[in-house]
């Protein structure tokens, strides 16, 4: 086999009663993501380029929880993570807590190829992006109505739960030494 390519757009409980039009749209987007990678690999391009370009395509697609279409944090913002790794050289690059980079996978690759580190986090990752030629956006770019509504629902569930449980029941379960079974570590 000359080349091979596999992609995912997230796993979990995906509603089976999704409208046909939405189902078709997801399938079409996944097919288009495959085409991006096929073109690179067929043409003798590298697996790293295929991975970066396919993920860039998926980050730009608001249907998926990455880049545009990212979910909301508790505070109502967006914090993105990405990582890339080359198997032959066993080199890797990762960024976490990114807030203003349009395609985090590209910054992760820059960390791998142009820095002496593997991972940059939060403010440091943003400062590293300042030094690189990488496209920047503001937080509104990541907004989608669907994720906003999901966030509002999650906040309401949190509030409902804390009002029912009250603070006393939200303390962590007793440590194993006190007979609890919750893992600490």
């Amino acid at each position, binding site marked *: 086999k000359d080349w091979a390519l596999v992609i995912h757009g997230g796993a979990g409980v995906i509603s089976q009663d999704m409208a046909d039009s939405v189902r078709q749209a997801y399938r079409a987007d996944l097919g288009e993501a495959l085409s991006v990678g096929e073109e690179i*690999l067929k043409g003798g391009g590298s697996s790293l380029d295929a991975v970066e370009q396919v993920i860039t395509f998926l980050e730009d697609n608001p249907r998926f*929880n990455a880049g545009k279409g990212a979910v909301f944090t508790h505070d109502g913002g967006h914090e993105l993570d990405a990582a890339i790794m080359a*198997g032959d050289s066993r080199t*890797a690059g990762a960024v976490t807590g990114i807030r203003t980079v349009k395609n985090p996978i590209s910054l992760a690759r820059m960390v791998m190829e142009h820095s002496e580190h593997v991972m940059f986090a939060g403010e440091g990752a943003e400062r590293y992006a300042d030094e690189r030629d990488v496209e920047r956006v503001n937080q509104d770019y990541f907004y989608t109505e669907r994720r906003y509504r999901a966030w509002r629902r999650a906040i309401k569930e949190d509030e409902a739960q804390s009002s029912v449980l009250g603070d006393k029941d939200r303390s962590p379960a007793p440590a194993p030494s006190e007979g609890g079974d919750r893992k600490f570590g």
Partner: protein
Amino acid sequence: TVGCVALDKEGKLAAGTSTGGMTNKKYGRVGDVPVIGAGTYASDVVAVSMTGWGERIMEAVSGHTVSAYMKHKPASLEEAADYLLREVLEPGEAGMIAVDRYGNMLMDMNTPGMFRGMSDSEDHREVAIWK
């Protein structure tokens, strides 16, 4: 979360993952995606990208577990994925994609669904959502 693994004509493997994280996540919570060896990993044997419950995927050091299981058992990609998804992780926790150095492709999950697709130079091409 989105991910991609690839084997190129020079036989080189690469893995990548990108995510917006978890809805309503708090105060700097970091998931499995940027943790090399957990949500994203590539060796000379296999490239892996994970998706699902980040805390469980990290605790299982999932990507590296698949690679090490293949190398040291030794085992096939399918056997290593089965070990990770059905012996180490609990039902409902994760999905994974992987490709090994021979071009064997894998899309597997212990969740009800995963948006996924695969393609190779022998015209195997597939897109799927549910099991």
